[in-house]
Structure formats: structure tokens, C-alpha cells
């Protein structure tokens, strides 16, 4: 007896409206022909065309994508290792320190993480630029991967691994034949989260970047500080579209898989 009261419906509807209205407005105004952001001058793709010629913006986007891909991949490896250590090694010496170091970056204010990493790079006398941002983002995002993969490993039926070993599979091979394929969806989700966090980060990148490695958020931020610009609306719309598309495709793929499995299960009973 699940009664959905009108209060609940209103609460959810208002909440979603609050979340989506500003984005919708942003998207609509990116197609505004008028240069004055607030005056509606009819539909136009002018700002998208202008974007194509904004080489600085395109270069920043390319740097951001590369940073995000590299750091998300490194973070997935490190984060998965940390998750395995936390779920499988039981009580080891220094566990408290280790789990503290893993979880702290999740809630650590970005200004602190950014400042401390910058000071490290200065102390080590490393030239700041593309690679320092990759290192910083790897450190930030590996913890998110750990949390996601750990949740999956905690719910993992250990007897699957025992069954593999029982059937003659050595431990290391068992990890690659059984464990890894089964936690792969969690690692993939972690990778995607790490990727989008890296793509999004302004503060830590500002601290750790150097000449020639301006990321997209840094570029957008410097434009936004000077006021609203229609080109910025356009690039934001593209980013929103990419995210929306990715989410829809991902959910459709899992849904198709579900439907196929359900049909087959039905066939099994008949």
C-alpha cells in the first residue's frame, strides 16, 4: 500500500524544477541571436560558430579532456587497489591512517588540497603544467573510485573466488578471471566519476597548473569573471548535452540488458 500523497509529488516536482530551470534557461539563451544576453533576439547558432574560431577555448578543452582521461585511468588503478586493500586485508598495521588518507580527500576543501599540492611541487622543484595537474587530479579522484569499488567488493560473494580456486584456478588468475570482470562495472562507474570530476575542477587545477596548461574550467572562469558572454552559454550547453547523452545511452544500455535477461528468464519458465 504505497500511497503517493500530493505533498510528495509537489515536493519532488518543485525540487526537480529548481534543479533544471537554470540549466534550461542557459541552454535556451545559448541560441539567442542577440549579443545582449538578456534581450531575446530570435534563434541563432552564431555563438556556436564563434566558438569554433575560439582557439584558446578549444585548446583548453583539449587539455582538459586529456588530463581527465589520464587522471581517471590512473585513479581507477590506484583506487581499485586501495578498495581491495581495505576490504580484503582485514586488520593490517596502519589501517586507520590508510583509511583516513583514502576518505579525507572526499570532503577536504579544495583550496587546502590545491595549496598543499602546489607547495609540494615547489618543494620538489617540479615545473608546474600539464603533468602536475594530472597528478593532482589523480590524487583527488582516486578516493571516489575507492568508495564506489569498495561498496561493490563488500557485497561480493567470496565463495565465487573459492569456487574458482576449488576448480583449479590459481589465486592470481582467479582475480583476473572472476573478481575483475564482476567488479568491472563499479570500476567503470568510478572511472566516469573521476573523469567528470577532473573535467569540472577549477580550484585544484588553478593551484597546480603552469604556463601552457590552461584547463577548460580555468578558461571559462576567467571569461565568466568578466561577465556573462553568449559564447560561454554555448560551450556550457555543449557540455550539458554531452553529459545528458552519455547518461541516456548508459541507462538505455543497462535497460536493454535487463530486458533481454528478463525475456530469457521468462522463456526458461515456460
Amino acid at each position, binding site marked *: 500500500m504505497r500511497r503517493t500523497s500530493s505533498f510528495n509529488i509537489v515536493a519532488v516536482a518543485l525540487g526537480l524544477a529548481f534543479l533544471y530551470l537554470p540549466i534550461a534557461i542557459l541552454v535556451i539563451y545559448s541560441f539567442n541571436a542577440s549579443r545582449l544576453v*538578456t534581450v531575446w533576439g530570435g534563434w541563432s547558432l552564431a555563438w556556436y560558430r564563434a566558438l569554433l574560431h575560439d582557439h584558446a577555448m578549444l585548446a583548453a578543452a583539449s587539455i582538459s579532456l586529456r588530463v581527465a582521461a589520464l587522471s581517471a585511468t590512473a585513479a581507477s588503478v590506484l583506487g581499485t587497489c586501495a578498495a581491495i586493500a581495505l576490504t580484503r586485508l582485514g586488520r593490517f598495521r596502519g589501517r586507520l591512517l590508510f583509511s583516513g588518507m583514502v576518505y579525507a580527500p572526499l570532503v577536504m*576543501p579544495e583550496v587546502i588540497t590545491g595549496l598543499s599540492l602546489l607547495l609540494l611541487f615547489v618543494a620538489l622543484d617540479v615545473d608546474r603544467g600539464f603533468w602536475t595537474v594530472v597528478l593532482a587530479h589523480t590524487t583527488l579522484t582516486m578516493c571516489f573510485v575507492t568508495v564506489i569499488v569498495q561498496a561493490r567488493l563488500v557485497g561480493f560473494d567470496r565463495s565465487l573466488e573459492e569456487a574458482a580456486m576449488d576448480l583449479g584456478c590459481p589465486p592470481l588468475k582467479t582475480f583476473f578471471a572472476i573478481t575483475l570482470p564482476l567488479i568491472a562495472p563499479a570500476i567503470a562507474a568510478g572511472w566516469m566519476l573521476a573523469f567528470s570530476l577532473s573535467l569540472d575542477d577549477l580550484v585544484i587545477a588553478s593551484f597546480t597548473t603552469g604556463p601552457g596548461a590552461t584547463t577548460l574550467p580555468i578558461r571559462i572562469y576567467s571569461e565568466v569573471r568578466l561577465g556573462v558572454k553568449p559564447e560561454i552559454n554555448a560551450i556550457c550547453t555543449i557540455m550539458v548535452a554531452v553529459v545528458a547523452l552519455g547518461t541516456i545511452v548508459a541507462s538505455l544500455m543497462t535497460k536493454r540488458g535487463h530486458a533481454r535477461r528478463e525475456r530469457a528468464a521468462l522463456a526458461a519458465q515456460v
Partner: protein
Amino acid sequence: MNRPQKTHWRARAVLLLPSLWLLLFFLVPFVIVVKISVSQTVLAQPPYAPVLDLAAGWRGVEVFFAQLTAEGYRLIVTDPIYLLSYFKSLQVAAISTAILLLIGYPIAYGIARAPRSLQPLLVMLVVLPFWTSFLIRVYAWINILQRDGLLNDLLLGLGLVRGRPEWLSSDAAIYVGVVYSYLPFMVLPLYATLEKMDEALLEAAADLGCPRWKTFWLVTLPLSLPGVAAGVLLCFIPIVGEFVIPDLLGGSRTLMIGQTLWTEFFANRDWPVASAIAVALLALLVVPIVVYQRLQTRQLEDLR
């Protein structure tokens, strides 16, 4: 008996790799921040002194310690700019977390009570904005809140205001931006606990003669407290150190501590003071962070 040893070696590698990484890129940097926070500002590169000169041997170490100073800390406890800045951060974090809870709870509750088949879609809709850029979401509000923006158009159209009031560069704009950006972080943990709750509990309460509104206070709310705690901490801690939102939406009269740190570092190039601010900020947040970690580990153990 070679098997246990081999596992040992592999287990060590799995632990060693992330440990070394976090040690080098998370823990050591903090030690450096602490060290620089007790250094002196100089016009040099790097802009602080002393620099530990190990080549000079023990003498170098002595010189190093002799030059350490608490000047940065003395400054941030005596100059009201910094104290006001800390206070402002705590105030913004506390008030906006309260607003987030008030808005987020009904949304999470509504989703948890929605038909089962609809819930994944609703959760996805709440999470989706989180996947778009943080910067974009804050920027979207500039569009709306600026003097000739849509909010004023709407208010003028309704005849609620005369003239065009300034919304941007105010505390109100900061609250709007913070609440908007952090709403998913509040809704998700709340939904997670509310969704797990056995509906038979509500039926049992109703069966025992408890009216619906009372059931909420006596059963639902107490059982969702872990989710409330998680949501509150997940929002409060990062909001205290927030930089982007106050910088883009807020005014320049009183800065939040994240902005102050940023300014000291980038504009004034005063690294020791920036470091001292960071250490003080961390000291402020260490209790909530530890509480949050406790919650996190307990939740994972419940999953077992």
C-alpha cells in the same frame, strides 16, 4: 607452504601502491603546508624563508629552526579580516546546510515514497545536474540573478518590485548558489536511508493507532537520522572551504575563508599566511571530518 607467502607479497603490493601515492601526494604536502605556515614571507622565489639547507649540516638545521616564526598565526588571530572571514564561512555553511536539509528532506522523502518503478529515474534526475560542470551550474545563476536578468524581469512583470534591485554580489546570491549546487549531496544520502526503511514499520505504527503526521515524527525521522547526519556533513564540510560560489556570486565586502586564502596566495603572494589559514581551516574541520569518516565506515560495515 609457499602459498601464504605469495599472497602476502601480492597483498603488500596492492596496499603499497595507493599508500605510497597518498603518502606522497596527500600527507607529505600537509607537512609542507604546516612548515611554511611557520615560515617568514620574503621577496624571493620561493617567497618564503627559511629553506632547509641540508648541505650546511647540523648548522643548517639550527639556522632553520631559529628562523621559524608564528607570525602568520599571530596575524590571523589578531587581524579581524581573517576572523570575520572564518565566521562568515561558518555562518554560510550552517545556514545553507539548514536550508538544504529543509528542502532536501521532502524531495528525498517524496522519491522514496514514489512508485518503485519510477524511483531509479527520479534518482537519476537528481544526480544528473551533478555530472554537469559545477562551474556551469554556478554560472547559470549569473544569467538569472544579474541586474537585467530573468529574475528581475519576472518580478517586474508581476509588479513585485520597482526598479531593478541588485541580486548578484550579495549573501542571498551565495545562499542560492550553494543550495543549488549542493542539493544532490543532501538528497542522495537521505534517500538512501529512507528507501531502505521497511514500509511495514509505517503500517505497524498505523495499525497501533498512530496518525500519519505523528508516525513521521516518531518513526520515520528518528530512523533516518544517519542519513541526515551524512547529508549534513557531506554539505557542511566542503561549503566551509567553498571558493567558486562566493567568488562568482557573492560581494567583495566580507570574503569567505576560501576566498581569503586564494587572495593571500595569488594576489598578495603571502604563502606563509595562506598556509596558516589552511592549517587553521583544517583545525576547524577536523572534528566534522572524523565524524563523517566514522559514519562512512559504519555504513560499509552494515552492508556486510
